[in-house]
Protein backbone atom coordinates (compact mmCIF):
# COMPACT_ATOMS: atom_id res chain seq x y z
CA UNK A 1 0.00 0.00 0.00
CA UNK A 2 1.15 3.51 -0.78
CA UNK A 3 1.63 5.31 2.56
CA UNK A 4 -1.18 7.73 3.42
CA UNK A 5 -3.19 6.24 0.53
CA UNK A 6 -6.68 7.05 1.92
CA UNK A 7 -6.04 10.76 2.28
CA UNK A 8 -4.01 11.03 -0.94
CA UNK A 9 -7.00 9.65 -2.85
CA UNK A 10 -9.02 12.68 -1.76
CA UNK A 11 -6.34 15.37 -1.69
CA UNK A 12 -5.02 14.50 -5.14
CA UNK A 13 -8.18 15.58 -7.02
CA UNK A 14 -8.54 18.68 -4.79
CA UNK A 15 -4.96 19.63 -5.54
CA UNK A 16 -5.49 18.89 -9.23
CA UNK A 17 -8.58 21.09 -9.20
CA UNK A 18 -6.56 23.98 -7.76
CA UNK A 19 -3.85 23.36 -10.36
CA UNK A 20 -5.98 22.80 -13.48
CA UNK A 21 -6.43 26.51 -14.31
CA UNK A 22 -2.68 27.07 -13.90
CA UNK A 23 -1.87 24.09 -16.11
CA UNK A 24 -4.38 25.42 -18.63
CA UNK A 25 -2.68 28.84 -18.75
CA UNK A 26 0.79 27.33 -19.08
CA UNK A 27 -0.35 24.86 -21.74
CA UNK A 28 -1.99 27.60 -23.75
CA UNK A 29 1.19 29.65 -23.64
CA UNK A 30 3.17 26.74 -25.06
CA UNK A 31 0.50 26.08 -27.66
CA UNK A 32 -0.49 22.61 -26.43
CA UNK A 33 -3.99 23.11 -25.08
CA UNK A 34 -4.60 19.38 -24.97
CA UNK A 35 -1.96 19.13 -22.21
CA UNK A 36 -4.54 20.26 -19.67
CA UNK A 37 -6.97 17.52 -20.71
CA UNK A 38 -4.30 14.86 -20.47
CA UNK A 39 -3.20 16.25 -17.09
CA UNK A 40 -6.69 15.53 -15.78
CA UNK A 41 -6.68 12.07 -17.35
CA UNK A 42 -3.32 11.39 -15.72
CA UNK A 43 -4.57 12.52 -12.32
CA UNK A 44 -7.62 10.27 -12.63
CA UNK A 45 -5.50 7.26 -13.54
CA UNK A 46 -3.05 8.01 -10.73
CA UNK A 47 -6.00 8.13 -8.35
CA UNK A 48 -7.14 4.75 -9.61
CA UNK A 49 -3.67 3.35 -8.93
CA UNK A 50 -3.67 4.74 -5.39
CA UNK A 51 -7.10 3.26 -4.70
CA UNK A 52 -6.02 -0.07 -6.17
CA UNK A 53 -2.98 -0.10 -3.90
CA UNK A 54 -5.33 -0.39 -0.92
CA UNK A 55 -6.99 -3.50 -2.33
CA UNK A 56 -4.70 -6.24 -0.90
CA UNK A 57 -4.87 -4.97 2.67
CA UNK A 58 -8.60 -4.35 2.68
CA UNK A 59 -9.54 -7.61 0.97
CA UNK A 60 -7.39 -9.31 3.56
CA UNK A 61 -10.04 -8.25 6.06
CA UNK A 62 -8.34 -5.18 7.46
CA UNK A 63 -10.16 -1.88 8.03
CA UNK A 64 -7.76 0.94 7.18
CA UNK A 65 -8.25 3.79 9.66
CA UNK A 66 -6.50 7.06 8.89
CA UNK A 67 -6.51 9.61 11.69
CA UNK A 68 -6.47 13.15 10.31
CA UNK A 69 -4.34 15.48 12.37
CA UNK A 70 -3.43 12.50 14.53
CA UNK A 71 -6.62 12.75 16.59
CA UNK A 72 -8.09 9.51 17.86
CA UNK A 73 -11.54 8.57 16.54
CA UNK A 74 -14.27 10.22 18.55
CA UNK A 75 -12.45 13.55 18.88
CA UNK A 76 -11.16 14.17 15.39
CA UNK A 77 -12.00 13.09 11.86
CA UNK A 78 -11.04 9.65 10.63
CA UNK A 79 -11.09 8.02 7.25
CA UNK A 80 -12.11 4.39 7.46
CA UNK A 81 -11.75 2.09 4.45
CA UNK A 82 -13.40 -1.30 4.45
CA UNK A 83 -14.57 -3.58 1.64
CA UNK A 84 -17.71 -1.59 0.86
CA UNK A 85 -15.89 1.75 0.66
CA UNK A 86 -13.20 0.30 -1.49
CA UNK A 87 -15.61 -1.17 -4.05
CA UNK A 88 -17.31 2.21 -4.42
CA UNK A 89 -13.96 4.02 -4.58
CA UNK A 90 -12.79 1.67 -7.35
CA UNK A 91 -16.00 2.31 -9.29
CA UNK A 92 -15.61 6.08 -8.94
CA UNK A 93 -11.94 6.10 -9.91
CA UNK A 94 -12.61 3.87 -12.92
CA UNK A 95 -15.60 5.86 -14.13
CA UNK A 96 -13.78 9.18 -13.72
CA UNK A 97 -10.74 7.93 -15.64
CA UNK A 98 -12.87 6.74 -18.55
CA UNK A 99 -15.04 9.86 -18.56
CA UNK A 100 -11.91 12.05 -18.55
CA UNK A 101 -10.54 10.17 -21.60
CA UNK A 102 -13.93 10.44 -23.30
CA UNK A 103 -14.17 14.18 -22.57
CA UNK A 104 -10.92 14.96 -24.38
CA UNK A 105 -12.67 14.63 -27.72
CA UNK A 106 -16.30 14.96 -26.74
CA UNK A 107 -15.95 18.36 -25.09
CA UNK A 108 -13.48 19.89 -27.55
CA UNK A 109 -16.11 22.09 -29.23
CA UNK A 110 -17.17 23.74 -25.97
CA UNK A 111 -15.79 26.89 -24.42
CA UNK A 112 -14.75 27.28 -20.80
CA UNK A 113 -13.01 23.93 -20.71
CA UNK A 114 -10.65 24.83 -17.86
CA UNK A 115 -13.73 25.30 -15.69
CA UNK A 116 -15.15 22.01 -16.95
CA UNK A 117 -12.08 20.05 -15.98
CA UNK A 118 -11.81 21.81 -12.62
CA UNK A 119 -15.41 20.96 -11.81
CA UNK A 120 -14.84 17.39 -12.99
CA UNK A 121 -11.98 17.06 -10.51
CA UNK A 122 -14.14 18.62 -7.77
CA UNK A 123 -16.96 16.14 -8.35
CA UNK A 124 -14.36 13.41 -8.06
CA UNK A 125 -12.95 14.85 -4.86
CA UNK A 126 -16.40 15.17 -3.35
CA UNK A 127 -17.40 11.62 -4.27
CA UNK A 128 -14.15 10.20 -2.93
CA UNK A 129 -14.47 12.22 0.26
CA UNK A 130 -17.99 10.94 0.91
CA UNK A 131 -16.90 7.42 0.15
CA UNK A 132 -13.86 7.16 2.37
CA UNK A 133 -14.82 9.24 5.37
CA UNK A 134 -15.78 7.84 8.74
CA UNK A 135 -17.24 11.04 10.14
CA UNK A 136 -20.81 12.04 9.50
CA UNK A 137 -20.36 15.80 9.37
CA UNK A 138 -17.41 15.38 7.06
CA UNK A 139 -19.66 13.23 4.90
CA UNK A 140 -22.06 16.16 4.70
CA UNK A 141 -19.29 18.60 3.72
CA UNK A 142 -18.02 16.42 0.90
CA UNK A 143 -21.55 15.63 -0.18
CA UNK A 144 -21.96 19.37 -0.66
CA UNK A 145 -18.77 19.60 -2.72
CA UNK A 146 -20.11 16.85 -4.95
CA UNK A 147 -23.56 18.44 -5.17
CA UNK A 148 -22.49 22.02 -5.83
CA UNK A 149 -20.06 21.02 -8.54
CA UNK A 150 -22.66 18.82 -10.19
CA UNK A 151 -25.19 21.69 -10.20
CA UNK A 152 -22.62 23.77 -12.02
CA UNK A 153 -21.79 20.96 -14.44
CA UNK A 154 -25.44 20.38 -15.31
CA UNK A 155 -25.78 24.05 -16.27
CA UNK A 156 -22.51 23.91 -18.23
CA UNK A 157 -23.92 24.46 -21.74
CA UNK A 158 -25.95 27.47 -20.54
CA UNK A 159 -28.89 27.07 -22.90
CA UNK A 160 -32.38 27.36 -21.49
CA UNK A 161 -32.76 23.63 -20.86
CA UNK A 162 -29.54 23.30 -18.91
CA UNK A 163 -30.07 26.44 -16.85
CA UNK A 164 -33.58 25.29 -15.98
CA UNK A 165 -32.31 21.83 -15.13
CA UNK A 166 -29.51 23.34 -13.06
CA UNK A 167 -31.93 25.52 -11.10
CA UNK A 168 -34.23 22.59 -10.49
CA UNK A 169 -31.37 20.37 -9.40
CA UNK A 170 -30.00 23.09 -7.14
CA UNK A 171 -33.31 23.74 -5.40
CA UNK A 172 -34.20 20.10 -4.84
CA UNK A 173 -30.61 19.16 -4.04
CA UNK A 174 -30.20 21.90 -1.42
CA UNK A 175 -33.43 20.80 0.20
CA UNK A 176 -31.99 17.30 0.37
CA UNK A 177 -28.67 18.35 1.86
CA UNK A 178 -30.49 20.53 4.41
CA UNK A 179 -32.53 17.54 5.54
CA UNK A 180 -29.28 15.62 5.78
CA UNK A 181 -27.76 18.31 7.96
CA UNK A 182 -30.87 18.42 10.13
CA UNK A 183 -30.55 14.72 10.77
CA UNK A 184 -26.87 15.09 11.62
CA UNK A 185 -27.74 17.88 14.05
CA UNK A 186 -30.33 15.65 15.70
CA UNK A 187 -27.72 12.93 16.02
CA UNK A 188 -25.32 15.35 17.64
CA UNK A 189 -28.01 16.67 19.94
CA UNK A 190 -29.05 13.22 21.03
CA UNK A 191 -25.69 11.54 21.32
CA UNK A 192 -22.98 14.19 21.35
CA UNK A 193 -20.66 12.64 18.82
CA UNK A 194 -20.01 12.85 15.09
CA UNK A 195 -17.97 9.75 14.34
CA UNK A 196 -20.15 7.20 12.54
CA UNK A 197 -18.73 4.22 14.42
CA UNK A 198 -19.05 6.02 17.76
CA UNK A 199 -22.63 7.01 16.96
CA UNK A 200 -23.46 3.43 16.02
CA UNK A 201 -21.95 2.17 19.26
CA UNK A 202 -23.90 4.70 21.32
CA UNK A 203 -27.19 4.02 19.55
CA UNK A 204 -26.62 0.34 20.22
CA UNK A 205 -26.20 1.14 23.91
CA UNK A 206 -29.43 3.14 23.95
CA UNK A 207 -31.23 0.27 22.32
CA UNK A 208 -29.86 -2.17 24.87
CA UNK A 209 -31.17 -0.18 27.83
CA UNK A 210 -34.44 1.30 26.60
CA UNK A 211 -36.80 1.27 23.64
CA UNK A 212 -35.73 3.53 20.80
CA UNK A 213 -37.23 7.03 21.04
CA UNK A 214 -39.32 8.23 18.12
CA UNK A 215 -36.61 10.64 17.07
CA UNK A 216 -34.53 7.73 15.74
CA UNK A 217 -36.93 6.73 12.93
CA UNK A 218 -37.35 10.41 12.16
CA UNK A 219 -33.59 10.76 11.73
CA UNK A 220 -33.57 7.70 9.46
CA UNK A 221 -36.37 9.20 7.39
CA UNK A 222 -34.51 12.50 7.03
CA UNK A 223 -31.27 10.77 6.03
CA UNK A 224 -32.97 8.50 3.52
CA UNK A 225 -34.80 11.45 2.00
CA UNK A 226 -31.58 13.42 1.76
CA UNK A 227 -29.65 10.64 0.06
CA UNK A 228 -32.73 9.58 -1.88
CA UNK A 229 -32.80 12.93 -3.63
CA UNK A 230 -29.27 12.30 -4.85
CA UNK A 231 -30.12 8.86 -6.23
CA UNK A 232 -33.53 10.01 -7.52
CA UNK A 233 -35.71 7.64 -5.57
CA UNK A 234 -39.13 7.94 -7.05
CA UNK A 235 -41.15 10.56 -5.32
CA UNK A 236 -37.97 12.67 -5.36
CA UNK A 237 -36.81 12.03 -8.92
CA UNK A 238 -38.14 15.12 -10.71
CA UNK A 239 -34.74 16.72 -11.23
CA UNK A 240 -32.94 13.75 -12.74
CA UNK A 241 -34.41 13.40 -16.26
CA UNK A 242 -34.07 17.12 -16.91
CA UNK A 243 -30.54 17.21 -15.57
CA UNK A 244 -29.32 14.16 -17.49
CA UNK A 245 -30.93 15.33 -20.68
CA UNK A 246 -29.59 18.87 -20.51
CA UNK A 247 -26.08 18.11 -19.28
CA UNK A 248 -23.31 17.20 -21.74
CA UNK A 249 -23.30 13.42 -22.19
CA UNK A 250 -19.93 13.07 -20.48
CA UNK A 251 -21.42 14.76 -17.41
CA UNK A 252 -24.50 12.54 -17.55
CA UNK A 253 -22.22 9.52 -17.66
CA UNK A 254 -20.23 10.81 -14.71
CA UNK A 255 -23.32 11.60 -12.65
CA UNK A 256 -24.99 8.28 -13.39
CA UNK A 257 -21.80 6.32 -12.79
CA UNK A 258 -20.25 8.10 -9.83
CA UNK A 259 -22.61 10.30 -7.84
CA UNK A 260 -25.60 7.96 -7.76
CA UNK A 261 -23.27 5.16 -6.71
CA UNK A 262 -22.04 7.39 -3.91
CA UNK A 263 -25.61 8.19 -2.91
CA UNK A 264 -26.50 4.50 -2.64
CA UNK A 265 -23.29 3.83 -0.72
CA UNK A 266 -23.94 6.61 1.79
CA UNK A 267 -27.50 5.43 2.27
CA UNK A 268 -26.36 1.87 2.89
CA UNK A 269 -23.54 2.83 5.20
CA UNK A 270 -25.57 5.15 7.36
CA UNK A 271 -28.74 3.11 7.56
CA UNK A 272 -26.91 -0.12 8.24
CA UNK A 273 -24.57 1.26 10.86
CA UNK A 274 -26.84 3.63 12.70
CA UNK A 275 -30.31 2.26 12.17
CA UNK A 276 -29.71 -1.45 11.73
CA UNK A 277 -32.21 -2.10 14.51
CA UNK A 278 -35.12 -0.69 12.53
CA UNK A 279 -36.88 -2.52 9.69
CA UNK A 280 -34.61 -1.11 6.99
CA UNK A 281 -34.96 -4.22 4.82
CA UNK A 282 -38.67 -3.66 4.30
CA UNK A 283 -38.06 0.04 3.70
CA UNK A 284 -35.52 -0.70 0.97
CA UNK A 285 -37.84 -3.24 -0.68
CA UNK A 286 -40.77 -0.80 -0.79
CA UNK A 287 -38.69 2.13 -2.01
CA UNK A 288 -36.93 -0.10 -4.52
CA UNK A 289 -40.17 -1.45 -5.95
CA UNK A 290 -41.74 1.99 -6.34
CA UNK A 291 -38.58 3.40 -7.92
CA UNK A 292 -38.16 0.45 -10.28
CA UNK A 293 -41.74 0.37 -11.51
CA UNK A 294 -42.23 4.12 -11.87
CA UNK A 295 -38.86 4.62 -13.57
CA UNK A 296 -39.49 1.78 -16.00
CA UNK A 297 -42.99 2.91 -16.92
CA UNK A 298 -41.84 6.48 -17.49
CA UNK A 299 -38.98 5.31 -19.68
CA UNK A 300 -41.42 3.50 -21.93
CA UNK A 301 -42.97 6.70 -23.28
CA UNK A 302 -39.85 8.81 -23.82
CA UNK A 303 -38.99 10.16 -27.26
CA UNK A 304 -35.51 11.38 -26.33
CA UNK A 305 -32.60 8.98 -25.98
CA UNK A 306 -30.93 10.69 -23.02
CA UNK A 307 -34.23 11.11 -21.21
CA UNK A 308 -34.98 7.44 -21.76
CA UNK A 309 -31.59 6.54 -20.33
CA UNK A 310 -32.24 8.81 -17.36
CA UNK A 311 -35.49 7.06 -16.51
CA UNK A 312 -33.91 3.66 -16.96
CA UNK A 313 -31.21 4.86 -14.56
CA UNK A 314 -33.94 5.53 -11.97
CA UNK A 315 -35.33 2.08 -12.63
CA UNK A 316 -31.93 0.42 -12.09
CA UNK A 317 -31.53 2.26 -8.77
CA UNK A 318 -34.73 0.49 -7.78
CA UNK A 319 -33.15 -2.88 -8.58
CA UNK A 320 -30.16 -2.13 -6.37
CA UNK A 321 -32.36 -1.05 -3.47
CA UNK A 322 -34.53 -4.11 -3.97
CA UNK A 323 -31.57 -6.48 -3.89
CA UNK A 324 -30.16 -4.92 -0.76
CA UNK A 325 -33.63 -4.90 0.77
CA UNK A 326 -34.09 -8.62 0.09
CA UNK A 327 -30.76 -9.19 1.73
CA UNK A 328 -31.40 -7.16 4.83
CA UNK A 329 -34.90 -8.47 5.43
CA UNK A 330 -33.74 -12.07 5.36
CA UNK A 331 -31.11 -14.15 7.06
CA UNK A 332 -28.73 -16.92 6.09
CA UNK A 333 -27.94 -17.54 2.44
CA UNK A 334 -30.72 -15.22 1.24
CA UNK A 335 -29.05 -12.38 3.11
CA UNK A 336 -25.70 -13.09 1.49
CA UNK A 337 -27.26 -13.49 -1.95
CA UNK A 338 -29.39 -10.36 -1.68
CA UNK A 339 -26.60 -8.06 -0.60
CA UNK A 340 -24.20 -9.61 -3.10
CA UNK A 341 -26.80 -9.20 -5.84
CA UNK A 342 -27.49 -5.59 -4.93
CA UNK A 343 -23.82 -4.63 -4.78
CA UNK A 344 -23.00 -6.58 -7.95
CA UNK A 345 -25.82 -4.73 -9.65
CA UNK A 346 -24.35 -1.47 -8.34
CA UNK A 347 -21.07 -2.34 -10.07
CA UNK A 348 -22.78 -3.50 -13.26
CA UNK A 349 -25.06 -0.49 -13.33
CA UNK A 350 -22.06 1.83 -13.20
CA UNK A 351 -20.51 -0.10 -16.11
CA UNK A 352 -23.38 -0.29 -18.59
CA UNK A 353 -25.01 2.98 -17.67
CA UNK A 354 -21.81 4.88 -18.37
CA UNK A 355 -21.43 2.88 -21.59
CA UNK A 356 -24.96 3.77 -22.74
CA UNK A 357 -24.55 7.46 -21.95
CA UNK A 358 -21.24 7.46 -23.83
CA UNK A 359 -22.96 5.89 -26.86
CA UNK A 360 -25.67 8.55 -26.63
CA UNK A 361 -22.89 11.13 -26.46
CA UNK A 362 -21.24 9.68 -29.57
CA UNK A 363 -24.52 10.04 -31.44
CA UNK A 364 -25.01 13.58 -30.18
CA UNK A 365 -21.42 14.38 -31.16
CA UNK A 366 -21.91 13.17 -34.74
CA UNK A 367 -25.57 13.97 -35.37
CA UNK A 368 -26.24 16.85 -32.98
CA UNK A 369 -29.48 15.57 -31.51
CA UNK A 370 -30.67 12.81 -29.24
CA UNK A 371 -34.30 13.03 -30.26
CA UNK A 372 -35.31 9.53 -31.33
CA UNK A 373 -37.78 10.78 -33.94
CA UNK A 374 -35.03 12.51 -35.91
CA UNK A 375 -32.69 9.52 -35.92
CA UNK A 376 -32.81 6.35 -37.93
CA UNK A 377 -30.72 3.88 -39.87
CA UNK A 378 -27.50 4.88 -38.15
CA UNK A 379 -26.39 1.25 -37.93
CA UNK A 380 -24.73 1.58 -41.34
CA UNK A 381 -22.94 4.81 -40.47
CA UNK A 382 -21.80 4.00 -36.95
CA UNK A 383 -21.44 0.21 -36.78
CA UNK A 384 -19.15 0.14 -33.73
CA UNK A 385 -21.26 2.54 -31.69
CA UNK A 386 -24.36 0.58 -32.66
CA UNK A 387 -22.80 -2.71 -31.56
CA UNK A 388 -21.65 -1.23 -28.26
CA UNK A 389 -25.07 0.27 -27.62
CA UNK A 390 -26.70 -3.08 -28.29
CA UNK A 391 -24.28 -4.75 -25.85
CA UNK A 392 -25.13 -2.18 -23.18
CA UNK A 393 -28.87 -2.39 -23.84
CA UNK A 394 -28.89 -6.18 -23.65
CA UNK A 395 -26.80 -6.06 -20.49
CA UNK A 396 -29.16 -3.62 -18.80
CA UNK A 397 -32.15 -5.76 -19.77
CA UNK A 398 -30.57 -8.83 -18.25
CA UNK A 399 -30.03 -11.00 -21.34
CA UNK A 400 -27.98 -14.12 -20.43
CA UNK A 401 -24.40 -13.91 -21.54
CA UNK A 402 -23.97 -10.37 -20.18
CA UNK A 403 -23.34 -8.96 -16.72
CA UNK A 404 -26.83 -7.58 -16.07
CA UNK A 405 -28.18 -11.10 -16.18
CA UNK A 406 -25.74 -12.32 -13.53
CA UNK A 407 -26.66 -9.67 -11.00
CA UNK A 408 -30.37 -9.66 -11.71
CA UNK A 409 -30.46 -13.44 -11.43
CA UNK A 410 -28.75 -13.22 -8.04
CA UNK A 411 -31.36 -10.71 -6.92
CA UNK A 412 -34.23 -12.92 -8.13
CA UNK A 413 -32.86 -15.97 -6.33
CA UNK A 414 -32.40 -13.92 -3.16
CA UNK A 415 -35.96 -12.65 -3.48
CA UNK A 416 -37.36 -16.16 -3.79
CA UNK A 417 -35.30 -17.38 -0.86
CA UNK A 418 -36.31 -14.39 1.24
CA UNK A 419 -39.94 -15.34 0.72
CA UNK A 420 -40.92 -12.40 -1.49
CA UNK A 421 -42.21 -14.10 -4.68
CA UNK A 422 -44.50 -11.21 -5.64
CA UNK A 423 -41.76 -8.60 -5.51
CA UNK A 424 -39.49 -10.93 -7.47
CA UNK A 425 -42.16 -11.43 -10.12
CA UNK A 426 -42.57 -7.66 -10.45
CA UNK A 427 -38.80 -7.33 -10.87
CA UNK A 428 -38.82 -9.96 -13.67
CA UNK A 429 -41.65 -8.17 -15.44
CA UNK A 430 -39.85 -4.85 -15.18
CA UNK A 431 -36.77 -6.48 -16.68
CA UNK A 432 -38.83 -7.49 -19.71
CA UNK A 433 -40.15 -3.94 -19.90
CA UNK A 434 -36.57 -2.66 -19.90
CA UNK A 435 -35.84 -4.87 -22.89
CA UNK A 436 -38.94 -3.52 -24.61
CA UNK A 437 -38.00 0.14 -24.40
CA UNK A 438 -34.40 -0.48 -25.29
CA UNK A 439 -35.46 -2.48 -28.34
CA UNK A 440 -37.64 0.44 -29.32
CA UNK A 441 -34.70 2.81 -28.96
CA UNK A 442 -32.38 0.52 -30.95
CA UNK A 443 -35.00 0.15 -33.64
CA UNK A 444 -35.54 3.89 -33.96
CA UNK A 445 -31.86 4.79 -33.93
CA UNK A 446 -29.92 2.16 -35.77
CA UNK A 447 -32.46 0.34 -37.94
CA UNK A 448 -35.21 1.51 -40.20
CA UNK A 449 -35.28 4.30 -42.72
CA UNK A 450 -32.28 6.60 -42.74
CA UNK A 451 -33.29 10.24 -43.19
CA UNK A 452 -31.50 11.97 -46.05
CA UNK A 453 -29.57 14.43 -43.88
CA UNK A 454 -27.94 11.62 -41.90
CA UNK A 455 -26.16 10.13 -44.93
CA UNK A 456 -22.82 11.80 -44.22
CA UNK A 457 -22.65 10.83 -40.53
CA UNK A 458 -19.32 9.21 -39.65
CA UNK A 459 -18.25 6.75 -36.94
CA UNK A 460 -17.29 8.29 -33.58
CA UNK A 461 -13.59 9.21 -33.14
CA UNK A 462 -11.35 6.42 -31.78
CA UNK A 463 -10.60 8.27 -28.54
CA UNK A 464 -14.29 8.20 -27.72
CA UNK A 465 -14.63 4.58 -28.77
CA UNK A 466 -11.79 3.42 -26.53
CA UNK A 467 -13.53 3.93 -23.14
CA UNK A 468 -16.74 2.56 -24.61
CA UNK A 469 -14.95 -0.57 -25.82
CA UNK A 470 -13.41 -1.08 -22.41
CA UNK A 471 -16.77 -0.83 -20.68
CA UNK A 472 -18.38 -3.21 -23.17
CA UNK A 473 -15.53 -5.65 -22.54
CA UNK A 474 -16.31 -5.51 -18.81
CA UNK A 475 -19.97 -6.18 -19.59
CA UNK A 476 -19.05 -9.32 -21.51
CA UNK A 477 -16.39 -10.52 -19.06
CA UNK A 478 -18.61 -10.20 -15.99
CA UNK A 479 -21.39 -11.85 -17.96
CA UNK A 480 -19.39 -14.88 -19.04
CA UNK A 481 -17.54 -15.23 -15.75
CA UNK A 482 -20.03 -14.05 -13.12
CA UNK A 483 -17.86 -15.67 -10.45
CA UNK A 484 -15.23 -13.01 -11.13
CA UNK A 485 -17.70 -10.22 -10.44
CA UNK A 486 -19.05 -11.94 -7.35
CA UNK A 487 -15.50 -12.32 -6.07
CA UNK A 488 -14.98 -8.60 -6.60
CA UNK A 489 -18.10 -7.86 -4.59
CA UNK A 490 -17.66 -10.42 -1.84
CA UNK A 491 -15.40 -8.26 0.42
CA UNK A 492 -17.98 -5.48 0.19
CA UNK A 493 -20.78 -7.86 1.07
CA UNK A 494 -18.92 -9.23 4.08
CA UNK A 495 -18.17 -5.65 5.15
CA UNK A 496 -21.88 -4.80 4.99
CA UNK A 497 -22.69 -7.79 7.14
CA UNK A 498 -19.85 -7.26 9.59
CA UNK A 499 -20.84 -3.94 11.13
CA UNK A 500 -19.39 -4.76 14.54
CA UNK A 501 -16.01 -5.35 12.93
CA UNK A 502 -16.10 -1.87 11.42
CA UNK A 503 -17.10 -0.25 14.72
CA UNK A 504 -14.46 -2.20 16.59
CA UNK A 505 -11.68 -1.35 14.15
CA UNK A 506 -12.47 2.35 14.09
CA UNK A 507 -12.88 2.70 17.82
CA UNK A 508 -9.94 0.42 18.51
CA UNK A 509 -7.65 2.72 16.54
CA UNK A 510 -7.88 5.31 19.32
Amino acid at each position, binding site marked *: MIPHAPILTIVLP*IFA*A*FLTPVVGIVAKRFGVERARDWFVVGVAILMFIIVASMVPAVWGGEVLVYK*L*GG*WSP*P*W*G*IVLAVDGLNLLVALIIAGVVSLVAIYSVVYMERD*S*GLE*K*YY*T*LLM*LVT*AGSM*GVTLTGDI*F*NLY*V*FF*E*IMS*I*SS*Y*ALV*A*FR*RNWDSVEAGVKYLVIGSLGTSLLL*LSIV*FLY*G*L*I*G*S*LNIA*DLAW*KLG*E*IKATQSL*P*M*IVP*LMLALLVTGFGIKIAMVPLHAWLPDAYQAAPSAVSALLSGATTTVGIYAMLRVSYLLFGALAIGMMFIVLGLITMVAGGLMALVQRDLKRLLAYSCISQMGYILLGVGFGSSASGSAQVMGIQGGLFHLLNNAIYKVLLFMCAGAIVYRVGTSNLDELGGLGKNMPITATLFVVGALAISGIPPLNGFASKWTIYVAGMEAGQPICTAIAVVMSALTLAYFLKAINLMFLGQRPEHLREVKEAPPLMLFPMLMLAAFCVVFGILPGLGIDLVRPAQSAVMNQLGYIGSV*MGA*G
Partner: protein
Amino acid sequence: MNRIVALGMVLIVGALLVFTVNEYLLPFGTFPERRIGSFENESIGQRILRDAPETTGSANVVTSIVWDYRGYDTLGEATILFTAVCGVAMLFRVTRRRS
Protein backbone atom coordinates in the same frame (compact mmCIF):
# COMPACT_ATOMS: atom_id res chain seq x y z
CA MET B 1 -56.46 21.01 -4.33
CA ASN B 2 -53.03 19.60 -4.98
CA ARG B 3 -51.57 22.64 -3.35
CA ILE B 4 -53.63 22.22 -0.22
CA VAL B 5 -52.55 18.60 0.17
CA ALA B 6 -48.91 19.60 -0.23
CA LEU B 7 -49.32 22.48 2.20
CA GLY B 8 -50.86 20.09 4.67
CA MET B 9 -47.87 17.78 4.30
CA VAL B 10 -45.45 20.62 4.96
CA LEU B 11 -47.44 21.58 8.04
CA ILE B 12 -47.44 18.00 9.29
CA VAL B 13 -43.66 17.78 8.82
CA GLY B 14 -43.24 21.06 10.68
CA ALA B 15 -45.45 19.95 13.55
CA LEU B 16 -43.56 16.67 13.75
CA LEU B 17 -40.22 18.48 13.90
CA VAL B 18 -41.41 20.92 16.57
CA PHE B 19 -42.85 18.10 18.62
CA THR B 20 -39.69 16.05 18.29
CA VAL B 21 -37.26 18.75 19.33
CA ASN B 22 -39.46 19.65 22.24
CA GLU B 23 -39.97 16.11 23.40
CA TYR B 24 -36.83 14.12 22.77
CA LEU B 25 -33.98 16.56 23.14
CA LEU B 26 -33.24 17.79 26.61
CA PRO B 27 -34.30 21.39 27.18
CA PHE B 28 -32.42 24.41 25.91
CA GLY B 29 -29.42 25.36 28.02
CA THR B 30 -28.45 21.99 29.46
CA PHE B 31 -25.00 20.99 28.35
CA PRO B 32 -23.34 18.52 28.67
CA GLU B 33 -25.16 16.34 31.16
CA ARG B 34 -27.88 15.44 28.70
CA ARG B 35 -25.64 13.84 26.09
CA ILE B 36 -25.17 10.14 26.25
CA GLY B 37 -21.52 10.98 25.98
CA SER B 38 -18.65 9.39 24.19
CA PHE B 39 -16.32 6.71 25.33
CA GLU B 40 -15.47 7.96 28.79
CA ASN B 41 -19.01 9.26 29.22
CA GLU B 42 -18.01 12.69 28.12
CA SER B 43 -19.41 14.41 25.05
CA ILE B 44 -16.82 15.43 22.47
CA GLY B 45 -17.56 19.09 23.16
CA GLN B 46 -16.72 18.76 26.85
CA ARG B 47 -13.55 16.80 26.20
CA ILE B 48 -12.30 19.23 23.56
CA LEU B 49 -13.12 22.17 25.80
CA ARG B 50 -10.94 20.68 28.52
CA ASP B 51 -8.01 19.64 26.31
CA ALA B 52 -7.88 22.17 23.51
CA PRO B 53 -5.81 25.02 25.04
CA GLU B 54 -3.15 22.51 26.01
CA THR B 55 -3.09 20.26 22.93
CA THR B 56 -3.41 22.91 20.24
CA GLY B 57 -1.97 25.98 21.96
CA SER B 58 -4.89 28.12 20.88
CA ALA B 59 -6.77 30.28 23.38
CA ASN B 60 -9.86 30.27 21.16
CA VAL B 61 -11.31 26.79 21.41
CA VAL B 62 -13.55 27.27 18.38
CA THR B 63 -10.53 28.06 16.24
CA SER B 64 -8.73 25.01 17.54
CA ILE B 65 -11.70 22.86 16.48
CA VAL B 66 -12.07 24.56 13.13
CA TRP B 67 -8.42 24.26 12.21
CA ASP B 68 -7.09 21.36 14.21
CA TYR B 69 -9.61 18.79 15.44
CA ARG B 70 -11.77 19.23 12.36
CA GLY B 71 -9.30 20.96 10.07
CA TYR B 72 -10.07 18.57 7.26
CA ASP B 73 -13.70 19.73 7.26
CA THR B 74 -12.47 23.25 6.88
CA LEU B 75 -10.30 22.25 3.93
CA GLY B 76 -13.48 20.84 2.40
CA GLU B 77 -15.22 24.10 3.12
CA ALA B 78 -12.49 26.09 1.39
CA THR B 79 -12.86 23.68 -1.53
CA ILE B 80 -16.58 24.42 -1.63
CA LEU B 81 -15.79 28.11 -1.86
CA PHE B 82 -13.47 27.33 -4.76
CA THR B 83 -16.25 25.25 -6.34
CA ALA B 84 -18.70 28.11 -6.07
CA VAL B 85 -16.20 30.56 -7.57
CA CYS B 86 -15.57 28.11 -10.39
CA GLY B 87 -19.27 27.58 -10.98
CA VAL B 88 -20.01 31.30 -11.09
CA ALA B 89 -17.05 31.97 -13.37
CA MET B 90 -18.22 29.10 -15.60
CA LEU B 91 -21.70 30.57 -15.81
CA PHE B 92 -20.49 34.06 -16.71
CA ARG B 93 -17.66 33.03 -19.00
CA VAL B 94 -17.21 35.09 -22.11
CA THR B 95 -17.21 33.17 -25.36
CA ARG B 96 -16.56 34.28 -28.86
CA ARG B 97 -18.89 32.85 -31.43
CA ARG B 98 -17.06 30.61 -33.85
CA SER B 99 -16.69 32.03 -37.31
